[in-house]
């Protein structure tokens, strides 16, 4: 049978990969995608703990996180579209109008 600690380490690896992605990527949409990666790592840990403890609470939490991620992706992408219309690029290094 599977060792739950292995699954949790897998989710930790996924989380760190997502963090590196957010810090390294330049396109706004790519950063959003790495954030989704991190959210999924968290969901995986939740489901593992749900299986360990046996109740539906953690699964409900995952359900809500998924819904929230959908709402956040939609709103974030709308912001990226608006930004693209304004600046012509989604490169986050170019979006520095408020810099002194």
């Amino acid at each position, binding site marked *: *049978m*599977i*060792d*739950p*600690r292995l*699954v*949790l*380490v*897998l989710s*930790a*690896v*996924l*989380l*760190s*990969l997502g*963090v*590196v*992605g957010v810090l*390294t*990527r330049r396109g706004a*949409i*790519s950063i*959003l*995608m*790495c954030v*989704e*990666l991190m959210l*999924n790592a968290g969901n*995986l*840990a939740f*489901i*593992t*703990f*749900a*299986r*360990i403890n*046996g109740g*539906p*609470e953690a*699964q*409900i939490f995952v*359900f*809500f996180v*998924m819904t*929230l*991620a*959908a*709402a*956040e992706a*939609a*709103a974030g*992408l*709308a912001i*990226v*579209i*608006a930004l*693209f*219309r304004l600046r012509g690029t*989604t*490169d986050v290094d170019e979006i520095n109008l408020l810099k002194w």
Partner: protein
Amino acid sequence: MELIAFFVLALLLIASALVVITNRNPVTSAVALAFNLVAIAGLYMVLDAQFIGLLQVIVYAGAIMVLILFVIMLLNLREEARAHPVGTFQRILAPVTTLLFAIVIGRAVWLSAPSSFPEKTEGFGTAASLGKELFTRFYYPFEAISLLLIVAMIGAVLLAKRKVS
């Protein structure tokens, strides 16, 4: 049997995550992320959370990723420029830092879990058990999140609307 499935899925997971964070073409990243999400759904099914696993495919891989792909194609995003001239120091530092981070968090979760799963409780992961909880104990969060979805939809439409002059 489940161990084989777990290792195959874990391999797919890490490989697609690496593609997501390194590939410069946004469409390739998006498709790799879709694979990643389906692999995670597979892991949920291995862990007996059937409803959440199928929901993951429907919501995440089937809707959110399609939305992201649409926006990438709408904006006609080309290959992303590489980060600023990356020196040797950074090329070594980035993977090492990732590894250290993963080790720290990995050690934390390693100490927090038992070494084998207990027996599956009756009705774990079915739609019926989740639905029962969702409509009784978690009723207010459920209503709140539907409100949040409406707000997000209205916000997205307003933000992305072309200004009619």
